[in-house]
């Protein structure tokens, strides 16, 4: 039920290292590593759960801004490609994790919680708009039934 897109403990530790990646971002990266250059529609079709176009588009854009993806425009759509191969990316992340650990920057319980909340601030408007639309739709359905 909730296990869809569940990151493993290893993936979890990686995403909480220097540059955090969300479960959806990791899933999208895995799709791009497996299938190569793709646009938003290609990624949507390969996801294991249905997601809104804007959600996938925002995720790809966020990965692009984090420097993990390269993109080119073809006609009216962007095509995304991972900059690093999966082994190279894992090697880089492992290096960052070890460096963080040796520098004593492994977050304590308090720091960890603080970081998790910071993620709320980074929510993009597109996703929040999408969620609000869903709520309005559901409210209308409920009222029409009543």
């Amino acid at each position: 039920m909730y296990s869809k897109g569940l990151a493993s403990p290893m993936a979890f530790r990686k995403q909480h290292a220097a540059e955090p990646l969300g479960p959806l971002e990791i899933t999208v990266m895995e799709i791009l590593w497996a299938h190569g250059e793709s646009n938003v529609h290609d990624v949507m079709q390969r996801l294991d759960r249905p997601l809104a176009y804007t959600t996938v588009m925002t995720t790809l854009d966020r990965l692009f801004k984090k420097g993990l993806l390269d993109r080119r425009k073809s006609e009216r759509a962007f095509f995304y490609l991972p900059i690093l191969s999966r082994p190279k990316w894992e090697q880089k992340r492992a290096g960052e994790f070890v460096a963080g650990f040796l520098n004593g920057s492994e977050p304590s319980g308090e720091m960890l919680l603080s970081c998790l909340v910071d993620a709320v601030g980074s929510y993009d408007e597109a996703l929040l708009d999408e969620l609000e639309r869903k709520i309005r739709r559901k409210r209308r359905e409920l009222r029409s039934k009543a």
Partner: protein
Amino acid sequence: MILAYDLRLVSVCLAFFFLAHTALGLIVSWLALRAVRLAARLRPASAARLLLTLRFLPAGLALFGVAVLCVPSYLKFELDAGMEDVGLAWLAVASLGLTIWVVSIARGVTGAARSLRYLRRQRHSGREMRLSEGLPVWVIEAATPLCALSGVLHPRLVVSRCVLRALSDEELAAALRHERAHLDARDNLKRLCLLMAPGVAPLHGGFAFLEHHWARFAEFAADDRAVAGDAERSLSLAAALVQVARLGSGNWTALETRLCADGRDLEERVDRLLQLAPPVDRNRHGQAVWWCGAAVGACLLALLLRPASLYAVHRAIERLMH
């Protein structure tokens, strides 16, 4: 190094704890992903309980081993009450045991102190009001959007003025019911226990995965409790979540439970609320499993408390110590 009888007992307890805790911690870490998958099939409250139990299991069992095996075997079979030589490796292991406790307790005390300071600051700047359902709430004038439960022993609902302005009456009521559910579940106390529970190794948590998913299921459980199966309340809470997320967030203390504690789970929480029906608990044999576990534990305890078992433990500790 030569140690007196009492100090040897302390070193035995610390080293035994460290070895048992590390071994159990590694097993729990290995089982964590499976446990989270299993938890996803349970009701959120049961799932949170399961993950919390698993998180505390290594420390609980290791302490139990110290109390039931280590200390009795030492007191019964350690005949030399004078000074005795102890190996450096054993002392190093005992030091690691001491370190993980010192680090954990310091983390807990720091978290509690920060929380207390924060509450005091709010007391000066805030104003107590009775909002929906007559709940006493501190309204603060902070620019940071806040709708939280803060504190451990006497937790307080804290709402900032900008959240009051942004939420409708129904949304605010749903948000406060959500925080009230955290209060009833004593989630802040559990957070304090998590801060004080030792990690697998000194300066390294190792249980962050379990703790993250415990927090996630605790949020789901609070959502379900706040909504109580009512479709309108579900929609109001979902709308409140999105509104608060839109307002953004700032710094917060470890011992407060926020309406949007983890932004990454926001989408999942809203989707759950829009399903308008709480997930069914498929684990109908939960209580039977607990009783079986208790029975097996009691049998194991009876076996361990036999003099032969205690003597074997003592021999093993003696060999490792020297």
